[in-house]
């Protein structure tokens, strides 16, 4: 089974204060720590588990600057074989569709059975790249995948997609395919020091747009369908009802509201 996993380096905003930067089009990332996008971490694990069961290769791809090598190396340390990083100044301002074009250009020449992405990025939350990539590659896809079963001949797979309310939808599809992986599908491993040392010896192939046969106009803002105008902090809503009083009173009021709305 030859597999490709797409990973993204994202800022960890869960426990940090987030401020909009001077451009108004981004957040100030100078004080944030970075890591692999959570869903991508599960995608890496799924690919490596399949490789361990059935053999094959896992190729790791990321779009981003040199900092992204950290996330790529960690995926290699866990069992990835080769890696590509797409870096080009013209990529700035790309939406999910433009990112998918760059990824598709890199993946097209490879022999692959499954391409994995995370279902959703922690930073922009678009959930576009995986499905756009499948369309551009002209292969089947399934999004929000929480179960993958390779059928006996290795030419078909059965996938479980997570729907609302914990429902699972099962589909059978022919390979090759793109699967966007939902968190919780497996238990991502921790890289060992041995794996880290092996990964450090591997070369990460850096590809520019021209290496991929793409023109600058196909990516960035020019090649995107959606262009980010500006970020604004959420306006304090008028719908909010602030309960005041002693804790006993406010708790009683809250309980009454929840009951009234049928939420408990």
């Amino acid at each position, binding site marked *: 089974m030859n597999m490709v996993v797409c990973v993204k380096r994202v800022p960890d905003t869960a426990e940090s204060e987030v401020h909009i930067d001077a451009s108004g089009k981004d957040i100030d990332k*100078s004080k944030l720590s970075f890591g692999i996008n959570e869903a991508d971490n599960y995608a890496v694990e799924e690919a490596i588990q399949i490789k361990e069961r059935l053999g094959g290769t896992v190729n790791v791809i990321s779009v981003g600057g040199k900092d992204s090598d*950290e996330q790529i*190396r*960690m995926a290699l*340390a866990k069992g990835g074989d080769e890696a590509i990083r797409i870096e080009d100044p013209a990529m700035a301002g790309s939406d999910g569709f433009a990112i998918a074009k760059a990824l598709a250009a890199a993946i097209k020449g490879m022999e692959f059975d499954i391409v994995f992405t995370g279902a959703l990025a922690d930073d922009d939350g678009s959930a576009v790249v995986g499905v756009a990539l499948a369309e551009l590659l002209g292969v089947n896809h399934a999004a929000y995948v929480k179960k993958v079963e390779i059928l006996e001949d290795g030419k078909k797979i059965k996938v479980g997609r997570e729907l609302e309310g914990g429902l699972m939808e099962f589909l059978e599809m022919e390979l090759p395919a793109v699967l966007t992986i939902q968190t919780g599908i497996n238990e991502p491993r*921790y*890289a*060992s*020091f*041995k794996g*880290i*040392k092996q*990964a*450090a010896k591997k070369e990460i192939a850096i590809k520019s747009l021209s290496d991929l046969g793409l023109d600058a106009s196909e990516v960035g803002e020019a090649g995107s369908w959606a262009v980010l105008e500006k970020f604004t902090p959420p306006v304090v809503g008028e719908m909010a009802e602030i309960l005041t009083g002693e804790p006993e009173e406010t708790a009683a009021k809250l309980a009454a509201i929840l009951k009234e709305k049928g939420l408990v």
Partner: protein
Amino acid sequence: MEGWTSLEAIRNSAEFTSLKEEEMSDLFQPVHEDFRKTLREYIEKELAPHADEWEEAEEFPLEKFREMGQLGFLGMQYPEEYGGDNDILAEAVFHEEMPRCGSAGVAATLGAHIGIAMPQINKYGTKEQKEKYLIPGIKGESIGALGITEPEAGSDVAGIKTYAIKDGSDWIINGSKTFITNGVRCDWVVLAVKTDREKGYGGISQIIVDKGTPGFEVSKKLKKLGWRASDTAELSFIDCRVPGDALLGELNKGFYQIMANFAWERLIMALGAVAGAQIVMEAALGYAKERHAFGQPIAKFQVIAHTLADMATEIEAGRQLTYYALKLYMEGKNPIKEVSMAKLYTCDMACRVVDNALQIFGGYGFMEEYPIARAFRDTRLGPIGGGTREIMREIIVRTMGI
């Protein structure tokens, strides 16, 4: 105040950035920093959430020991042929990250096994001994302990009373040991014994005793001020018979063998003291920014701000001294003076930092439900274990020609 405003401006300016810990040293390579990230993630997700429970139970679960062995977190300094990585700096990273689990007892359990007991086997063991103890030890399937201290001999190692006498090819051991980390649950203990009772230093040897050997009993699990998740025991040996090949290293050279790893033991204590103090200082800083008194965050009061500045300064001084000693150690220079200074300074410094942090937390600092109370109890062992602060000073004195 004009001056204060300009300080604020400096703080908020884009040029004001503080270096991250790892950028302050050229010791560690990118592989070590990658390993640090993995370890930190593991410790924060798999250990820290259980720290309270393990402290309460006064035990670190064996399953976790095994898990960490399977993940390859216990063998960094050991040869690859026994399942290790042959990279002692990676183990240094481990000791720097462990305080993030929130329990020095957990750190001590693992530290005593990988940094104190197994090194003796690795340095002085025969191939058979290494295969028997290192391979399962690195996998987390067997736990080791080092038994030196006795009820009446601590710093004065030459004064130990436990002895072994030859009976045919066997050794027969009598005596007792105390304050032995992992003593209750260890599968083997490297014991310091007198093999020539007429002599002091020159009469000590090391013998490995397996759990279950008749005559080897755990006489007591000890209750402690801190390090509660670690097990600490009093061990007794009554006519305990072990085969001749249980001798570790050379006969009557045990004292020098013990001394040889003290440098590493003291370095890992210094690394842990600095890392622990850093966590406590950051907690106090965060609290001082949030906690209001007299209409402003207490961090805005100069007395608190200056205390925090002193804490940060002392931590940095300790870190740089420790890294310097570690660098000399890595270069094979046997830096006894620098290691002793690092251990002396950092373990005392951590006590001062924790004491000041507790003061900043006020009444909450005194409450067991806040982590600062545990840190206060745990830190106090630093200037005692692995060579007391008084012994460190004695060693430094001797390097000064006094």
